[in-house]
């Protein structure tokens, strides 16, 4: 490919090839400070290619390809090339990752205890994780939690955080402007701006943590906390996992092990400050 870039994120390395220079320049700026893969090798290949040869020049459109592809994925405008690269990396993980049990969840850690937050799109897990990452917690990831099926620990996967619409302003008030990517207006998911995790999150991205709490946050309701039974937690996590079925018996053992050993709560919250307050309470209770 004409242009390429290798990125190490937590235990996973990607090589991203592109027919254009601009998406990789944007990616390199966003991931400034991340190490290159120490062995020079990668787990997954992402390719950003023109949909048809002439679309490299004429109304350029970026098709997301790579080792694993969705046949009907729609191409993006070249101006959204950074988003295409991010989606390409997500796709490799969701379709091709088999080394760890993958949960579609955000994870933060403090005092060696990790909180896993999962829920449907719009539940606010990315925003919450990003905010906690600026308030004394270590951000382990906003998109995927990687569960080591033998050790039962969680591995960090601190990709750039994908902030959408209203969440962008919330974090712009917290983090320095140098850590943000460009504002991508009018993407299929609305406005998007990426935020690079802080220095600590990157420096400690090789360091796992024990899961201590599973949270099912829901944004937009009056503040409430309720316990969730193990059967329900299990079912919800199978739905949140991209590779649970493919991992077979090992995936089942790992997930039931997690559900049996870690408490779970569902929280409703009207605004992120309330949720941050609730999570501070949980932290005190976990330490007690």
């Amino acid at each position: 490919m004409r242009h390429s870039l290798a990125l190490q994120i937590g235990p996973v390395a990607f090589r991203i090839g592109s027919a254009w220079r601009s998406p990789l320049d944007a990616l390199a700026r966003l991931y400034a400070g991340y190490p290159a893969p120490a062995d020079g090798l990668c787990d997954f290949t992402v390719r950003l290619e023109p949909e048809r040869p002439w679309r490299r020049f004429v109304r350029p459109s970026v098709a997301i390809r790579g080792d694993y592809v969705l046949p009907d994925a729609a191409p993006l405008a070249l101006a959204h090339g950074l988003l295409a690269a991010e989606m390409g990396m997500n796709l490799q993980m969701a379709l091709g990752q088999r080394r760890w049990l993958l949960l579609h969840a955000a994870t933060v850690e403090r005092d060696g205890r990790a909180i896993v937050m999962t829920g449907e799109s719009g539940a606010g897990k990315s925003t919450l994780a990003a905010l906690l990452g600026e308030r004394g917690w270590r951000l382990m990831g906003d998109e995927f939690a990687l569960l080591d099926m033998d050790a039962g620990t969680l591995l960090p996967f601190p990709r750039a955080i994908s902030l959408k619409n209203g969440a962008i302003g919330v974090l712009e008030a917290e983090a320095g402007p140098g850590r943000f990517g460009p504002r991508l207006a009018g993407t299929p998911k609305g406005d998007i701006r990426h935020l690079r995790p802080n220095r600590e999150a990157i420096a400690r991205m090789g360091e796992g943590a024990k899961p201590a709490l599973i949270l099912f946050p829901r944004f937009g309701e009056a503040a409430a906390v309720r316990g969730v039974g193990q059967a329900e937690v299990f079912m919800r996590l199978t739905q949140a996992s991209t590779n649970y079925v493919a991992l077979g018996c090992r995936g089942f053992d790992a997930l039931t092990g997690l559900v049996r050993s870690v408490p779970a709560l569902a929280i409703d919250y009207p605004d992120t400050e309330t949720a941050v307050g609730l999570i501070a309470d949980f932290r005190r209770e976990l330490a007690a």
Partner: protein
Amino acid sequence: MTGARLLVRALRDPGSIGDCDWMGLVSAARAEQLIGSLAFRMEGRKAPPRVAAIFEAARRDAAHARTQALWEAEMCRRALAPLGVPVILMKGTAFHAAGLDASVGRSVGDLDILVPRASLPAVEAALLGAGWERLKQEGGYDDVYYRRWMHELPPLIHKDRDRMIDVHHTILPLTARPTPDAAALIADSVALDNGLRVLAPADMIVHAAAHLFADGDLAGGLRNLWDIDRLLREFDSADFRRTLEERARLHRLAGPVARALRLSHRLYGTPVENRDSPSFSLADRLFEARLLARNGWGQERRKPLRLAFYLRGHWLRMPPLMLARHLWIKATR
């Protein structure tokens, strides 16, 4: 060396792979759906830790693919058992069900079965009654086209398991020039313990060769050719070679089978008889170039060559006037 050529070398002689373009090897193997086969070939050999972990995950994944393929075959068996018709598994599922070397690391997409043509309506009705659904609109162009001209029913998909089944009644489209002997395929098939059947070994190779060289555009052909290599090595004997020649002639597929042997020998080093020592023609070279048209990023290369093979695939598939009409309808809908 990188891409498809490196992949072929690693499959053929995994011991020769030392310091190489590992990423190119992995990406080409994933793109050609040969990562599982490669992972087993590389088992126990030296590779950088990251690559060794990729291979280990691929081996585990292959075990899952096998379970899933065999379960799908069992679901099909249960749906069709009341009909009392022979149900013959084909391709990947057959290799797994019969425990052949070709199944080691073999990925399986759709379930392919062969049944007598007269049983098609009953088989289709039984599958529809057991949770499979139509993928093509009933009575639409594709649906009618399949039923009239193809060697299989329009594909069905299971509503819960999301897996496709292709129900064949022979191994080449009815519009293709060679006419394989479907009755002989069924008559000489071999029963498995569970009552399902697989093609006789020689017919497996004839089918794989027909699929690769007498139909379609050779996309993903390296995997088909790897199947052929594994089958030939497992069944190899003087008797078997004679049987294969006879079966190829019986099914009017001597040409494609001979080509399969030449290319399999050329790329994978499959032992073939020296008697009519394989002379490698210009056409063979084009086939080889087409099979190897993949680079170390997993991209397909040689666009004009691929297009030529795409057109050839259609040309083999149907007479010129019909082809013109078919391509016109596909292009304008």
